[in-house]
């Protein structure tokens, strides 16, 4: 009988983040509260590491997602595209406790993608003539102006996927994919937490979203809350 080896599998969230120390730069997957690494964020809160720089599209809500680490004052800087749903964020930002770099969402996604793909910078039309282009190089291509944006990299990427196989191949579910696949490629150490583990060969190679090479550690997550930020429904007629 063949024994399945999950060599990347880590027993606990605390073990998975054991070497994340004060001042680390983290990429944290998710869009709003959708597709966020709930177990790893909670472990960071329990460990109490401070001075973190978090690259994440949003900052969670007051008591969930990255909002948990804002509550405890563990985040020094956020690189995000939209941070509107968080009162603690607002207080810390206005009092100068929290540094924020706002980046257009598409530039953020591409900066992370570039970081993982070995491209140090790229020209983009997004933000030309606005505050986000101030102080950055611009260049005309084919009669149109573009601004040079730098790639982003991190010490650790904290990823949430739907499921993984023993090699560490990942699949995401629906829009819980969002920033996770790019972030998985752009950090020195990528830690993926998943809802489900499947056996070797059980994943269709054509349907793998993140190939195993990017994933250093795997964690089978527990007690997912998967909170819905805006529950919208339609009436039955």
């Amino acid at each position, binding site marked *: 009988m063949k024994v399945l080896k999950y060599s990347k599998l880590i027993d606990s969230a605390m073990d998975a983040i054991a070497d994340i120390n004060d001042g680390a730069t983290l990429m944290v997957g998710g869009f709003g509260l959708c597709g966020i690494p709930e177990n790893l964020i909670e472990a960071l809160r329990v460990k109490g590491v401070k001075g973190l720089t978090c690259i994440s599209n949003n900052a969670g809500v007051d008591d969930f997602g990255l909002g948990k680490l804002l509550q405890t004052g563990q985040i020094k800087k956020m690189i995000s595209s939209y941070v509107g749903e968080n009162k603690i964020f607002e207080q810390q930002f206005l009092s100068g406790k929290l540094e924020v770099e706002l980046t257009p969402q598409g530039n953020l996604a*591409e900066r992370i993608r570039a970081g993982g793909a070995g491209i140090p910078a790229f020209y*983009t039309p997004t*933000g030309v003539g*606005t505050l986000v282009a101030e102080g950055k190089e611009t260049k005309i291509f084919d009669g149109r102006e573009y601004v040079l944006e730098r790639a982003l990299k991190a010490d650790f990427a904290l990823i949430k996927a739907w499921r993984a196989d023993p090699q560490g191949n990942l699949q995401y579910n629906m*829009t*819980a994919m969002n920033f996770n696949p790019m972030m998985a490629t752009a950090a020195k150490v990528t830690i993926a937490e998943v809802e489900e583990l499947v056996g070797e060969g059980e994943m269709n190679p054509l349907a793998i979203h993140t190939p195993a090479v990017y994933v250093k550690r795997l964690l089978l997550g527990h007690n997912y809350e998967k909170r819905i930020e805006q529950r919208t429904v339609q009436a039955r007629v």
Partner: protein
Amino acid sequence: MSFKLLSREQLAKRAAAELRPGMYVNLGIGIPTLVANAITPEMNITLQSENGILGMGPFPFAGFERADLINAGKQTVTLLPGASVFSSADSFAMIRGGHIDLTILGAMEVSEKGDIANWMIPGKMVKGMGGAMDLVAGSPNVVVVMQHCAPDGSPKVLKNCKLPLTGKNCVKKIISDRAAMVVTAEGLVVTEIIPGLSFEELQACTEARLLKSPEGIKVLNP
């Protein structure tokens, strides 16, 4: 005054007239979201949501909400048959690459050159631009839906935007609660005005210089 400003629903209905069969469309938050209500299956419109959906459907019935399936406004949604989901990088590649035919979004200010400001008021808490800067820079057709004047009556259709810009020279058409205007190299050309409002009265509440459409001005009456 003998005119009635368009309601949010009427504005959305007028904006829906910009849709053409087969278009791939991104709708912004607010009034633009209401445009979806005017879409029928026969129109063959595919809605994009920048968090990673092509073929977004309506809100789910109660009990069928899924935390893993939301739109860019973080609302629970559904997928229509033939939909696809993808990463944020793929989503903005299709936006930046000009593959999304039409973007309809709201604005705080627009200029006669097609500049738009809709993300930041200096001195107030800045929430972020989200995907708006990418959408206006990447879409070949940007339509703005907005109030023509601020609540205090001051104009929002300007010679130059006063607020920090979201994008430069990107807006193609402005649909306000008073008029429809096309951005041209010569300036803003008025094509439609609401009943009871004259061109001169419209100009009086607009800072940008307005031009009359050579084809005549139609009644903006959704």
